[in-house]
Structure formats: C-alpha cells, structure tokens
C-alpha cells in the first residue's frame, strides 16, 4: 500500500492552455433588436499553436477577435487567458493584460503616425514601464526579427504596406507576449508582401510563439496548424492541419522540399 503511494508516477506537467473559453456568449443591443454575435463558443488553444479563425462577415469572428484580445468582454461565459480569469477585470487591469499577454497586428497596420518605426516598436515597452536603454535594445532586436533593421528611423508614411505591417509585427512581439493576435494581417497587402508577412508568422511560430490569425482568406488559413471556422456565432469546423509541437505546415513543406532536393 505504502509503496504504491510513494511510487506513484509524478503527474505529467500539462502546459496550461493559452486560451480557454467555455460557453461564451456575446450579445449586442442594436436599437430594438438584439444581435447574438457569439452563441456559446468553447475553445482551447494550446501554447505554441498556430490557429486561423475563419468566417465570413457576420460570422462573429471580429467579436471573437475583440474578446480574445481583451478589447471587449463577453456577455456570458468563462475566459482564461494564460491562466488569468479575464471576466470581471476592470479597464486598468484589462490594459495590463493586453500590455503583457497580447501582441496585436491589425489589418490596417495601425502604426502611430509621425512616429518612427523604432519609436512605434518601443511604445508598448514604454507603456509597460521598461527603461529607455533596454527598450531600445529590445525594439531594435524585434525590428531585426522582421528584417527591418535598415528602417529604424523611417516614418510610417515613408514605408510600403508590407514594411508597415512588419513594423506592426515587430511591435506585437517586442513585449514577448503569450500570444500574437492578428486580425486580417494580409488584408491590405499584395501577394508578395502577404507572403513575406506570413513567412514571419511561420518563423515566429516555429520559435514557439502562439499565433492566432483571424482571416477570411482560405489560402492564408493554409499557413495555420489548426483552422477554426465560425458561422453565425458558432464553431462549425475545427480542423487540425499540423501538430502543435511541430513546424507550421508551410514551413514543414518547404523544409521537406529542401531536404528532398538535397538528398536527390
């Protein structure tokens, strides 16, 4: 008896999921009518995953993005973000959560105008209270990660859309957040620039970062390890394209091709 108890194998350390949503509802009052944007969605996203949330307009994917990004709170349901119960947090606490746990990438880049790339990337660190010296070093590193080390002092107005979006990605990763949340990041970009940005997401995910992508483009969703489709506020499809632990599918493909090319 005694030996059984002591020799019981240790509990495996299960990494807490980045996102755990249970039965979430979001309703808006639109004049007289009540719009149910989300109807009882439950979802778990693990650390290191690359998830694409798809859906047509009106499917509730924007609402989903707002709630996942702590920009909005659900009307009903439970939401743990990296182990933190987000429900009932006030404005100040929510801004802290956003600052520490989420890196946003928006469709329209949303860089601060008249502010250099470097200053834009430094800003989240400034709001988090990081000292100027460290801030600068980290911002430069983040811009290097998106291959923009030559554009540190450029203003958003002096850069192409793809470059601006890469600055936005650098800004999203500079705080080392638990999750990168990208809302239609390629929506305003041409194919080549979109490929560049997606390649960066691939690399970030390969380095172990969790990426959540909101998109309506199927070929962008192909980059993700897992595709979730929303329709009328409910999850109608949850398809896994690659394992959480492995490389993102496109990166795996290209490395396979490269490997194949090398062997032949």
């Amino acid at each position, binding site marked *: 008896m005694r030996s059984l108890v002591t020799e019981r194998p240790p509990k495996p350390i299960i990494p807490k999921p980045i996102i755990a949503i249970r039965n979430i509802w979001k309703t808006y009052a639109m004049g007289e009518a009540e719009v149910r944007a989300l109807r009882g969605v439950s979802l778990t996203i693990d650390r290191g995953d690359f998830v694409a949330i798809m859906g047509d307009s009106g499917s509730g994917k924007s609402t989903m993005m*707002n709630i996942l*990004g702590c*920009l*909005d709170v659900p009307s009903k349901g439970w939401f743990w973000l990296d182990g933190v119960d987000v429900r009932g947090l006030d*404005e*100040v606490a929510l*801004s*802290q959560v*956003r*600052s*520490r746990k989420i890196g*946003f990438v*928006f469709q329209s880049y*949303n*860089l*601060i*105008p*008249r*502010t250099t790339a470097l200053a834009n990337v430094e*800003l*989240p660190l*400034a*709001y*988090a*209270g990081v*000292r*100027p010296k460290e801030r600068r070093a980290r911002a430069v590193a983040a811009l290097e990660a998106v291959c923009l080390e030559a554009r540190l002092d450029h203003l958003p107005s002096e850069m192409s859309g793809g470059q601006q979006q890469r600055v936005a990605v650098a*800004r999203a990763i500079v*705080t080392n957040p638990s999750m990168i949340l990208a809302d239609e990041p390629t929506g305003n970009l041409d194919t080549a620039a979109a490929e560049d940005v997606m390649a960066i997401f691939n690399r970030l995910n390969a380095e172990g970062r969790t990426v959540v992508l909101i998109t309506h483009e199927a070929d962008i969703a192909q980059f993700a390890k897992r595709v979730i489709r929303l329709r009328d506020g409910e999850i109608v499809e949850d398809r896994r394209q690659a394992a959480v632990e492995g490389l993102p599918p496109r990166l795996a493909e290209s490395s396979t091709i490269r490997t194949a090319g090398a062997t032949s």
Partner: protein
Amino acid sequence: MIWRDNLRIAVGGATSNKLRSLLTMLGVLIGVAAVIILVAVGTGSSLSVQNNIERLGTNTLTVLNSGRFGGRATTGTQTQAATITLADVRAMQDPSQAPDVESVSPVVSTTVTATFSGATDTSAAVTGSTPSYLTASDDTVEAGSSITSSEVTNRSRVVVIGQTVVSDLFANENPIGQTIQLGSSSFQVVGVLAEKGASGIQDPNNVVIAPYTAVQDELTGESSSFTELLVQGKSNGTLDLAQSEVETILAAANNTTVANLPFTIINEASLLSTASSTSSTFTVLLAAVAAISLLVGGIGVMNIMLVTVTERTREIGIRKAIGAPKSVILAQFLYEAVFLSLLGGIGGVLISVIGSQFKIAGVVPVIAPYSIFLALGVAVAVGVFFGFYPANRAASLRPIDALRYE
C-alpha cells in the same frame, strides 16, 4: 510609462499641427498679455497719481479762501467777506492752540508776466509766502538760497524761480543775483528751484516764489488777507487732528461753526487714499476685462483639444490596444493642453514685457510682478481645466470603438 516619454508624445502631438497649435496659443497669449499689460497700466496710473499727490506733500492741509465766492458770513446788516488773516496764521502757529501743526505758510498768489532784459516769459505763477512754504510744498532750492524770514519781515523784493522760468528768461547767464521784472516791479533772483515732475496740466516749474509781503506790496496791492494757507502737520497720522484744530481756529475767528466754515480745506492724506482706492478699483476693472480674454483663450484650448481628440481617436485606440492605461492617455492629452497654454502664457509674458516699455494712453505701465505669476498660473490652470474634459474623453474611449473609428 515614464512621464518624460509621455511628455514627449504630448509635445509631438501639439507640434504636429503647427498652425493650429500656434493659433490656440495665440488665444492664451493675448489673454495673458492683456492681463499683465492692463494691470501694469492700472498700476502705472495709480503710481503716477500717488506721486503727484505726494509731490504736494502728504502731510499738508490746504485752506482755500472760498469765502470770496459766496461763503459770506452775514451778521445783521453788516456783510463782510470771510478772509484768512494774519491773526489766523498767528493763532495756528501757536502750539497751545494748534499742537499738531508743524508750520503754517500763508500764500498770496497771482499770475504776472516776468521779463529779463527783453526776453519774455509769459504768465509765471507768482507765489508769495514764507520760507516754510518750500518745505511744505516739497520744493527744494537747487542753487543760491531760499527766501528768509527776515526778507519776509523786511518786505525784500527777492525771488526763487523755477526751472521753466530759468530756461525762458536766461539763455546762458547765471540767474542768481540777476534782476527780473515781475509786471512793473523789479525783483532780485536769489535762488533756483530743482526740477519737479509734471503733475497735470500746470507746469510745476513755471513758478516764482517771493516773500508774501513783497508780493502784497508790489503785485496784489496792500491787503491783510491771503489766497490760501498751506498747513503742514507734525506727522501723517495726526493730520486729521491738525485739520480739526485749524477748523476750530478759523470758526472762532469768523464767528461761525466748523460746519459752516466759509473755507475749503483740502486734506492731502485723504486725497491720497481716495485717489489710490479709485485707481485700485480701476486696476481691478482692467484686470477683470483682461481675465475675460484669458477665459476666451482657455475655451479656445478646449475647442482645439476636442478636435484633436476626435481626430486622433484611432491613435488613442491603438495606444490602448498596445497597453496604454487610461491614466497615461489622460496625462498625454492634459500635457498637450498645458503645453499649449503654458507656451502661450510665456509668449504673453514676453509680449507684455515688451509692450510695457511703451507709454499706453499717456501712462507709463509698471509691471506688477504678481501679475506675471498670476497670469502664468492662470494660463496653466486654464490648460488643466479646459484640457481635462477632452483628455478625459480620450482616456475613456473604449479601445474597440476607437479602433473602429474612421
């Protein structure tokens, strides 16, 4: 967030639209400059009024013989003009009757044409009096000597002349010892008065002071009465006591009561306090008008900040999404409003310092240091007050709404 970074962001925001910021600052600038300059004008004019009165001597009483113009004491069938007599002067000089009177200077005044070897000085004011007059009226002899008591007793025809008379009559000669003609009589110049600042329309330097006895003999004709008395009190505080002693003496001499005294007594101290209270009311009024323009400037700041917040709604949303707390956004826009109003305020101080170098409406403005601090302080307060509402509005925006804003 380090406040210095936020300050830099705020300044960057204010300088992003230079023309608009400049115009907003102009509103505050004009307000602050108006407050400082108008208070300076008020202070300057009240100072000049005070100087004028103090030049007359603040501890003096002037007894004017208004009896000639209708204040007649009627006793039965006998009608006689009430006059200031030598007996009155003697009584006032008696310390037992008037202990608070320092000196009494009887004055006989007239206006004559003064000439010196052909050069003509029209209408010099001739004052016939005693040596104490010069002290009481704050006149000082610059060169030569004053008139003396013995010259008064001896009815000597000597004069002390003012600077205007000197410049009109004497080109290069030394006036001391020269003989000038006052009307048809000749007087010897014994002294020259120091320059006195203008105290109104009359030129205080166009004067001739002589013993009253000589003036009575030669110019006004033999008479026992005086035009006015200049009474100097022992001190400022006891001037009212001196006044009542003088009134008692005059009432007794004229068989009347103090209330019916046929003389006008001007108390310089009360004149000064009236004048200074009038001018301080004037200053407050000017400051109030200026304060209104400062208020208008403040409303301008608020207006522009509201526009700025609306214009930068999206930027506020981005900042909030990437982790800016409410307090930081509030501070950012407050800093911006205060930056505008402070800069406007500093500009206003500079403009007003420059502006007060010039005479405004005949008054030399004197900048009151308190008005600079007050106006700057109010400008900053205006920035905080009028900036708070727009800043709070920005800070309270929900990031989701702000991000959606186009």
